[in-house]
């Protein structure tokens, strides 16, 4: 019986020739990640347990992205605790305001994560790096603390669901729509404890930004990780970013899957997830009249260059509807600079959008765009749980940057065709 991509990476990092689903193993880690919300809890545990040093200062990344620029005194204290820890422990990859980005956009961009590597992060969307053909998964702060101390983590080897992608997306349909479609199909626990493995002929038509946003939301189907096969597009992305040798992994021909789904990308329509679960999906033609108060374009799911370019293409020469706030958040400093140089900010500001420095901010109801009771937002983010963006009686509708931008113009959830 052959192995999946995930199983091969885990076996290699456990020093084993072969692993099977269900097996408990200990793996060597190539990167351990934390942010300003999860790292303080990890540092407390690390210190309480009496550890005095980290396993490798170059294999730890601390990114201050959730409540930054600091929203209050307590958040500032958390960042200070992380900053001091990084300095004391010789953590090389510490990113603060001015050079940071949203962690899951930043680490691939800087080449800190690469194909074939084994990565844990104290943030559920750490599964994003599967887009690079890496095994990466979200854990809690205690696992992060143990990872920083020992360079290892325990895993139960997952079984997998395979998604065989064919065809090509239609204009204005994005990776976000594909992953929302899939979550709608299999449910928020449809891949619980499992890997979601993406391969097939259609991969050549999916950009790295599309793949990153798809792998990012594997957790919203309950998955342990999402992972893409390695190809020329992955290679081109990593060239110039990753300066160390890396290994790529493909699934064995006789690998066993719990299920295999064939997805024809040309059949995917723009998709919106209604409150309060990412599985409550409707295609854009089924949405009906949903008036909105706010639009958020950004996050670790959709704050990358292609996302901003798509939004700008739709917002160019138009204006955000009266009584709608549209907040655009480039995911990293590099993306911010590129968007500025390309004139995207001019388009956004002239359209009546607010453009923010990189932050997770509103996605988790932290700051920079909180909803009042009864308000509705269309967001390119990843979760629409009760109270996710603010008041427990507010609502979040998840969509692509194309749908979010079109909706900002009309003031209700709208297809791109309504504004172009």
């Amino acid at each position: 019986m052959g192995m999946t991509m995930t199983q091969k990476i885990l076996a290699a990092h456990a020093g084993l020739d072969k692993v099977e689903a269900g097996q408990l193993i200990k793996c060597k880690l190539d990167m351990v990640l934390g942010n300003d919300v999860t790292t303080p809890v990890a540092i407390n545990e690390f210190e309480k347990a009496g550890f005095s040093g980290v396993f490798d200062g170059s294999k730890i990344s601390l990114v201050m992205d959730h409540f930054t620029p600091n929203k209050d005194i307590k958040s500032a204290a958390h960042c200070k605790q992380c900053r001091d820890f990084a300095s004391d422990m010789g953590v090389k990859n510490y990113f603060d305001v001015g050079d940071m980005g949203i962690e899951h956009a930043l680490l691939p961009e800087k080449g800190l994560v690469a194909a074939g590597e084994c990565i844990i992060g104290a943030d559920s969307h750490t599964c994003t790096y599967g887009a690079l053909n890496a095994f990466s998964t979200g854990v809690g702060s205690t696992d992060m603390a143990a990872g920083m101390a020992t360079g290892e983590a325990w895993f139960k080897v997952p079984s997998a669901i395979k998604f065989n992608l064919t065809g090509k997306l239609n204009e204005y349909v994005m990776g976000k729509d594909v992953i929302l479609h899939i979550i709608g199909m299999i449910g928020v626990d449809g891949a619980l404890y499992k890997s979601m493995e993406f391969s097939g002929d259609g991969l050549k038509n999916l950009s790295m930004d599309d793949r990153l946003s798809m792998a990012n939301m594997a957790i919203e189907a309950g998955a342990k990780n999402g992972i893409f096969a390695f190809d020329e597009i992955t290679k081109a992305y990593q060239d110039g970013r990753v300066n160390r040798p890396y290994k790529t992994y493909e699934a064995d021909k006789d690998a066993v899957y719990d299920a295999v789904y064939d997805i024809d990308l040309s059949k995917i329509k723009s998709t919106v997830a209604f409150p309060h679960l990412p599985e409550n999906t409707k295609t854009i033609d089924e949405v009906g009249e949903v008036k909105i108060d706010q639009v958020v374009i950004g996050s670790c799911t959709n704050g990358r260059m292609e996302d901003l370019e798509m939004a700008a293409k739709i917002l160019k020469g138009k204006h955000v509807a009266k009584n709608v706030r549209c907040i655009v958040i480039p995911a990293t400093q590099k993306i911010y600079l590129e968007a500025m140089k390309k004139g995207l900010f001019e388009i956004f500001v002239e359209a009546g959008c607010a453009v923010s420095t990189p932050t997770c901010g509103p996605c988790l109801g932290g700051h920079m765009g909180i909803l009042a009771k009864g308000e509705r937002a269309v967001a390119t983010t990843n979760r629409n749980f009760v109270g996710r963006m603010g008041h427990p009686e507010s609502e979040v509708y998840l969509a692509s940057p194309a749908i979010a931008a079109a909706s900002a113009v009309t003031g209700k959830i709208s297809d791109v065709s309504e504004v172009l």
Partner: protein
Amino acid sequence: MKAFGKVHKYGDNVDTDVIIPARYLNTADHKELAAHCMEDIDADFVKNVKEGDIIVANQNFGCGSSREHAPIAIKASGISCVIASTFARIFYRNAINTALPILECDEAVKNIDNGDEVEVDFDTGVITNKTKGQTYKAQPFPDFMKEIINAGGLLKSLKK
């Protein structure tokens, strides 16, 4: 080891945002987090919960954000055990790693109602519903996880 308490029952997909909303994640203090536990799904939880009480929920408990503040808040609120049909995987890890006892038992979840008084024997995995006079059997943990829980959490087990 045994737990005994009154049940607070919830449905499917209880996510970590409702267990501890992000607006309170600017603190890592266990007591402060416990003061807002379950706030967005059950505003009266903190008022009603007593030391030793048990949370029972359906599928996919603890889905969403990896915030360890969720099991921390639950444990610090006085809850002695969480029983669910299934747990989201990060929450499952976090509960084991922070030594919050959890059990997967669909039969118990189907039969236990809100307010029932329940006893849990962690050594045998037997759950006794004192109110209804029923018993249910949960899956025991693999030895490796038992060691982590018995040591008082992952880091304590690593230090051994």
